[in-house]
């Protein structure tokens, strides 16, 4: 137990990333507000980034540094996706006056 608490190793980082990822998943599944869902998606991307960086640190050589570039690209993609997603939310809201994904359906139950 002491081992786990005091000798913080890469496993800890990976578990942290996994936990963040799964909280993000839970958020996507549970929440009905589109904005919260988008935020949860951002959270998932961050967790993935963290995993990437952990493994990069683990190998720790020159080649592993390209993971940082990768992570940077991921942040860029996340930004683009967030902006477009938010634009869609705004557009939908204009039409439907509602951002509840449960209500944003034309499929008959």
């Amino acid at each position, binding site marked *: 137990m002491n081992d786990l608490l005091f000798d913080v190793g890469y496993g800890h980082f990976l578990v942290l990333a996994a936990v963040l990822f799964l909280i993000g*998943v839970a958020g*996507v*599944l*549970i929440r*009905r507000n589109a904005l919260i869902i988008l935020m949860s998606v951002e959270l998932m991307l961050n967790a993935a980034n963290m995993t990437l960086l952990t493994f990069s640190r683990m190998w720790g050589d020159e080649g592993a540094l390209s993971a940082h570039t990768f992570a940077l690209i991921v942040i860029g993609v996340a930004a683009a996706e967030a902006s477009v997603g938010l634009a869609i939310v705004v557009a939908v809201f204009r039409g439907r006056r509602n951002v509840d*994904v*449960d209500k944003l*359906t034309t*499929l008959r*139950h």
Partner: protein
Amino acid sequence: MSDPQTWSFAGLPALLWIPLLPLLASAINLIFGKRIGKPGAGVLAVLAVAGACVLAGVEVFGGLFYHATKEAPPLWQAGGITQTAWSWLEVGGFKAELAFRLDSLSAVMILIITFVGTWIHIYSMGYMAHDKGYHRYFGYLNLFTGSMLILVLAANLPVMFIGWEGVGLCSFLLIGFWYENDAYAYAGRKAFVVNRIGDFMFLLGMFLLYWAVKSLDFNDIKNAANITVLHDSVWGPHNSHVWADERLAAAAGICLFGGACGKSAQLPLFVWLPDAMAGPTPVSALIHAATMVTAGVYMVCRLSFLYSISTTAMIVISTVGLLTALVAAFIAFAQTDLKKVLAYSTVSQLGFMFVAAGTGNYTAAVFHLGTHAFFKACLFLGAGSVMHGMEHGGSTTPGDITTMGGLRKHMPITRATFLISCLAISGIFPFAGFFSKDEILGGAWAVAGHGTPPGWPQFYGYLLWGGLLIAALGTAFYMWRLYFLVFSGNERSEAAKHAHESPLSMTSALAILALFATIIGFIGVPHLEALHGIPSAFHALSNWLAPAVQHAWIVDATHTLPIGGEGSDSMTITLMVIALAVGAFGIVLAWALYGRGPSARVAHWVEGPLAGPYEASKNKLWFDELYDATIVRPFKMIARGLFEIADRFVIDTVAVNGAAFVVSLFSRLSRWVQNGQVQRYLSGLVVGAAAVFLVTDCHRHPAFSISRQGEELRLHAEPGAGIVGPNVKLHWHLDGSTDCSADKDKPSDPPDLTVRRGDVGGRVALCIDDAIGRKMNVVTAEVPTEETP
């Protein structure tokens, strides 16, 4: 003149034309009848039957003439005329041809059928003149005649069965002729169903015979005694002659007789005949008096050689016949419907005929059949005439004798013919019934004492004789009761007062039939040694029939016993006198009680001491109720139960609705999966991922197995899921040591290893070096001491 055997017309043998003429007329009447119109259809029908009659006469007498003049052996001794139309069935080894046979027995039958039939057709033209189903009636009637002729002329059992079924069908059609009335339609249905039961027994008999003889032709069956076969009967293997096996003949005979019970209305299948009076009266006359009901008797006589083998079958026939005669006579006492009395009388007389057949006296059976055809047809037609008159007088229940009376004044011709027929049926000399009934009684007496066939109790003949005598007494009584109640006394209703005689078409038929009922008896005078002077024509019938029927008991393949033994003259005359006395006594009794109409004395008796028997008789001994309770109602309950369970529940609810329910259930489940919400799909994804983890979790523990094949040991390692692949290093320790520290730098061993038994100790250990997990797992296992399969 050519040999009648070769006669043919338009490619079909002449014998086939006898039934074919009425059948063709029937087809024309049924299809074009409406267009032909009112007397035309009737005329056509009459001409067809008359033509058949003429043709029959030509065949028979022409054949006799030919054989007499051409110095060929006498026609009937030569086996008669057999003509084959074509081959009808050929299935495997079974062959049935459409073959017709004219021998003395069938000659008698076709002459009677066509002759009586012609007069009944003529009568019907008058009777049905106002009916709107005129052409249909004549179509059916001709169809019936044709079928009956096929039955009688058949040379093998399948063709006879065609006729058998045909007459059953026509009986149904004609009984329910006025089908708008539900009761009549039900009567027709009842007749058909009860007949069907008989037909089933007939089929069983046919199957038994085919199984034994491998053929259903009458000649083949008759000659089967000459065939030596090794065949297995139901009761074990049996060698040699087929017909020496009495049990087979008994079984087949009884089954076929079961068919006869249905067709000829014997106990227990007689219940349809009284209900059959719902049909038009000429139908009752033709079908249920003269012809169809005699088909059973004909069949028994036709297969006389079969029955002569089996005294068991004979005793069954005689007993059933006797019981039927008594029961029917008893029921007839209290009936008040004119035709019903006659119907029960028919059943009773059929019982007589079957007793005759059952005692081996086939000649007497056929004789009584013939005489009965005439006087019963006359009685029925007379009844029809009476009812016709009552209808014209305004009666709504023309058959009810309680409303009749005094009709002798209004319908003299009918009365005269009716009287003659009643005398005939009561067995009064010199009318026809006297001779025929006497033959039967004499035959019954003769099978007692010395002439007892093997297997019968000695006294049985006397029992039959006594019972028949009582039945004859009853016959005379109820028939004369009927006569007196209808014709004597005073009119008991307005309708009777206004009744009038029937038209010529009807009365002429009555007259002809009454004439024959008077004189026909004289062809069957018994052999009396004291009466040498009587020309041989008077014994014609027995001589005539001799070649066709078997007059001896077949005890075994070589040994026969003559039927009836030899009776003395005095015995014969005594019996005749007794029979006559009994008949006369019955008439006197009826006259005493009913001579001037319904009697107060009888009414008093039926209130008091005779109340029980009277009720039993009036209610037909509750036969219908009995059948209804024991057979019909349970059958209906079973059918209802099956309907509820199998049809409603299993098929409708479980299968059909259940299938729909299952489909809708699955559709509901599938709909749940795809509802358009992405979150639900993602949930599926997550749950699926968790499931994958769960599944791959199961196979965690590294293990290995050892299997022993003789002197070899096969080691197989399973390092565990998820930690397989090139990173895993395995080290086998064949000495069983679990110290893996020395293994770190060694190269990996293969996961499957085969070693010899001698190389290993008691245990084997496997060190698994997991480079990623940085762990060293050790697994050990014992070496098996025995072979692993």
